[in-house]
């Protein structure tokens, strides 16, 4: 079987949003990410939104079992996975039911008509067949017997029908590849490599893929194919990785930049586990991964390794953040570097582990007993997770402090084209290990004092075990600055408390000044939108939309949540109207109000999913209206 392409009508479009949906067992995540991969090769710009069901597989065919993957691709710079799909691929009735209402009216729906039997309809909770009863009227529906066609295609391969059926996602992939004129060879190569060890499965997948492709070509039911012209990208080498992978790579790179071996102490938890999985593969990068007995030991072992001079990292999600608090307090008190990665998910308590949220910000800023300031950095997109990881490590090492690195389920699992950085251009991180005494006592003996500080950065001079003559003791009891000896006197404690805070203030100075995106010059716009973490793409997209309407809208994005960049206060002071959209009940908003006393408005969404550009757009419009009303 070969792939022939006729001269069928090809329409040029600027952007498309496709959503693949099916049962958890249908391989939709795989289909989606393959489609993304070849789309990146065009190259189109892409943004994705994988959506998993709860952790345990729900009964096949039910709504709870539906898994989906949304891809937005275009010929221009895009930001979000798209608000509403142009195309929905529904592998069964439950998938249709779960996602139909999201599809743009007039949008395309491709269904696997073989799966619309009575039993499956019942499982999905359909009383009658939606394909017949008018439910899908507002859409352009293509009913395709994907199961049958897949079985057909695999007939001569020799696989059992049950196994052959498993290939039907490749049929769907083939069909979509045809519809959107995606490159074909890379997928064929990929199938051949991936399934090399199982000839029959490989063959079945290949044939199904081609069958899908050819079906588009030959079946006289599609009016047109679509083409999305290559997007203009900055020149460079690109890859497409999920945020968790980029974050893991950032840690490895930071380890090299600092010449400190990476030690990861971690306990598995969704959606952070993939960082552990990723790093566990990288033993030839000198990476030690330690799957601890719990989150406390994950953090404790990382701190122990850090004490030994490693780059100590621990990864987790919300419940683990609670458990690590006491250890992080110790790290802050000892003034040892380490990085705590929090891939935020829906809380409180176990919440919804597979959905995204930004509601751990206040917990990482304030969630330790005593006065225990700890820096916080947040990743804003899958690719940025790489940079954020390096920045967190830089602060940790240079200032000898634990640093929280926040990401979330959305950044972790979605992907975007990411231009590879020039590794050689990345600045080194120097731990400045001390190997000679820094103190002379009354008797003239040289020794090491662990809390002798740089007068500007307040970073202490750091010696690690194994260094002769620099033996010293440290601990969680309050200690004297300089010597580090246990000290219970009252004024010393106040001094130490202020010093620990002063270090954060010094870090603030090391952060580049915030740049406001305001086409009308600083303070020119009528409203300022403040984003942090994964709200970035939606906020920017929403801001762009309102600008297209001719409105004056500015935007600023925060990577550093504690301390804030030193000019944040000044920036906020320039705008009368400020909105802070967050996937929480207003946590950054709370911090900003407390710090700068600005009457910002919180735009809150707590639904386990990211903002849509349209939601931000309308929030901005509302904000401007309100202002007008208030003035009149």
């Amino acid at each position, binding site marked *: 079987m070969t792939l022939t392409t006729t001269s069928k009508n090809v329409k040029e479009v600027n952007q498309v949003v496709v959503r693949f949906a099916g049962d958890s067992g249908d391989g939709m995540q795989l289909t989606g990410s393959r489609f993304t991969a070849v789309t990146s090769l065009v190259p189109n710009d892409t943004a994705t939104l994988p959506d998993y069901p709860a952790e345990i597989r729900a009964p096949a065919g039910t709504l709870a079992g539906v898994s989906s993957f949304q891809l937005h691709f275009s010929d221009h710079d895009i930001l979000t996975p798209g608000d509403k799909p142009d195309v929905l691929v529904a592998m069964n009735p439950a998938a249709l039911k779960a996602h139909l209402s999201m599809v743009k009216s007039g949008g395309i729906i491709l269904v696997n008509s073989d799966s619309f039997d009575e039993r499956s309809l019942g499982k999905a909770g359909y009383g009658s067949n939606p394909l017949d009863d008018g439910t899908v009227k507002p859409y352009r529906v293509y009913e395709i017997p994907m199961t049958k066609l897949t079985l057909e295609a695999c007939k001569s391969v020799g696989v059992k029908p049950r196994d052959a059926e498993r290939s039907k996602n490749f049929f769907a992939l083939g069909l979509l590849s045809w519809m959107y004129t995606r490159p074909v060879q890379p997928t064929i190569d990929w199938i051949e490599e991936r399934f090399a060890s199982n000839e029959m499965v490989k063959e079945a997948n290949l044939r199904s893929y081609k069958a899908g492709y050819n079906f588009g070509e030959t079946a006289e039911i599609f009016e047109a194919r679509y083409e999305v012209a290559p997007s203009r990208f900055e020149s460079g080498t*690109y890859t497409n990785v999920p945020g968790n992978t980029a974050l893991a790579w950032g840690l490895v790179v930071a380890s*090299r930049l600092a010449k400190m*071996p990476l030690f990861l102490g971690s306990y598995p938890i969704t959606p952070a586990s993939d960082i552990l999985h990723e790093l566990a593969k990288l033993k*030839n990068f000198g990476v030690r991964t330690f799957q601890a007995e719990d989150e406390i030991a994950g953090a404790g072992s990382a701190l*122990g390794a850090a*004490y030994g001079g490693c780059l100590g990292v621990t990864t987790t999600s919300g419940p683990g953040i609670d458990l690590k608090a006491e250890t992080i307090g110790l790290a802050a008190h000892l003034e040892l570097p380490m990085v705590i990665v929090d891939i935020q998910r829906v809380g409180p308590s176990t919440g919804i582990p597979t959905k995204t949220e930004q509601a751990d910000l206040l917990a990482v800023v304030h969630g330790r007993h005593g006065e225990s300031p700890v820096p916080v950095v947040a990743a804003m997109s899958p690719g940025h997770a790489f940079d954020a990881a390096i920045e967190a490590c830089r602060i940790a090492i240079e200032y000898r402090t634990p640093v929280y690195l926040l990401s979330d389920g959305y950044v972790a699992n979605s992907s975007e084209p990411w231009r590879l950085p020039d590794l050689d251009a990345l600045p080194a991180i120097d731990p400045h290990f001390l190997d000679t005494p820094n103190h002379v006592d009354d008797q003239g003996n040289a020794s090491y004092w662990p809390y002798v500080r740089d007068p500007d950065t307040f970073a202490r001079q750091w010696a690690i075990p*194994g260094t*002769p003559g620099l033996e010293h003791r440290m601990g969680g009891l309050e200690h004297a600055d300089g010597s580090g000896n*246990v000290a219970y006197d009252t004024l010393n404690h106040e001094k130490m408390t202020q010093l620990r805070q002063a270090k954060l203030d010094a870090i603030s100075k090391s952060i580049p000044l915030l740049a406001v995106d305001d086409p009308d010059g600083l303070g020119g716009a009528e409203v300022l939108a403040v984003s942090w973490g994964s709200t970035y793409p939606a906020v920017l997209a929403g801001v762009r939309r309102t600008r297209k309407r001719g409105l004056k809208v500015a935007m600023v994005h925060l990577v550093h949540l504690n301390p804030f960049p030193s000019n944040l206060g000044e920036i906020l002071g320039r705008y009368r109207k400020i909105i802070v959209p967050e996937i929480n009940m207003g946590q950054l908003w709370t911090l900003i109000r407390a710090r700068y006393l600005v009457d910002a408005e919180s735009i809150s969404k707590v639904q386990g999913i990211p903002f849509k550009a349209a939601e931000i757009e309308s929030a901005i419009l509302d904000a401007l209206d309100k202002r007008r009303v208030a003035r009149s």
Partner: protein
Amino acid sequence: MSDGVATAVSRPDTPASTRKDWVSDQEVRWCPGCGDFTILAAMQTLLAEMGARRESTVFVSGIGCSSRFPYYMNTYGIHSIHGRAPAFATGLAVARPDLDVWVITGDGDALSIGGNHLIHTLRRNVNINIILFNNQIYGLTKGQFSPTSEVGKVTKSTPYGSLDTPFNPVSLALGAEATFVARTHDMDRKHMMEVLRQAYDHRGTSFVEIYQNCNVYNDGAFNDITSKDRRADYLIPLVHGEPIRYGKDGEFGVSRGEDGMLHLVKVADVGEDALLIHDMSLDNPSQAFELSRLARGPHEPTPIGVFRSVDCPEYGYEVARQLAEVEGRKGIGDLSALLRSSGTWVVE
């Protein structure tokens, strides 16, 4: 950028040390008469004797009276948080196999809040020496019962007597796959030093329970075993390769009976040949476990010595081996290749 993997710090020849070299400049702050003093002295003397190096010795502790120990050792030291020393030490020992890592802990620190880290460290067999100062009480918080206090203990938190069956630390360690398990006491510096020496020499996690007198909150808890006048009748010395016997004239011993179980016997009744020869190197921990059950508490004849010492893969070594193996197979990781490993495309 270079590879960046840490290399062991080179160890220059250091002159032989004396006990004084191991004494830090901090005033020792335990109650006068506390058993902790003799353990401290034993440790300092031992490390000097063994030619250990100060710069590559680290003491890690949790919280408790006993956990102040690192402050008094002129080595690297960390007084961490309650119960978590084994976790901290695991990270350190795995990251830095060149160091000698000691954990100093108490019965509350190790067995109450820190119980989980303890048993996991033991099963992994990380190269750490865990020294548990068992005084059967919470000393630092001024006298509550601990997981090793006997049932019925009247303390501040149990004015009508405690109800909790205590752990037998040796049994617990053996149930957790420990490869080196020993018990000693604070009134016999020589024995302490001998046991600590063996713990130090053991590759993997060494677990040493030291009966330690808290003369303020639980005075005399181990008097039967430690006092000169009763010791002979209550302390059963375990000596590898020797028959297990005790009593002033060695008139008692341990022997396996008809029922297949170990019993305390009069040597005269069973004959010398019937005595159990102690073998700490048995792969199967069952006999060591059975020895740990001879006494239900320190008021019955109690085995003291090394219960088990077997050679098993050491965790930190295995981690390093796996790293080297993968590196050998794949070569030192190439960052640029890593970033390209998911496939790339080039935009001109």
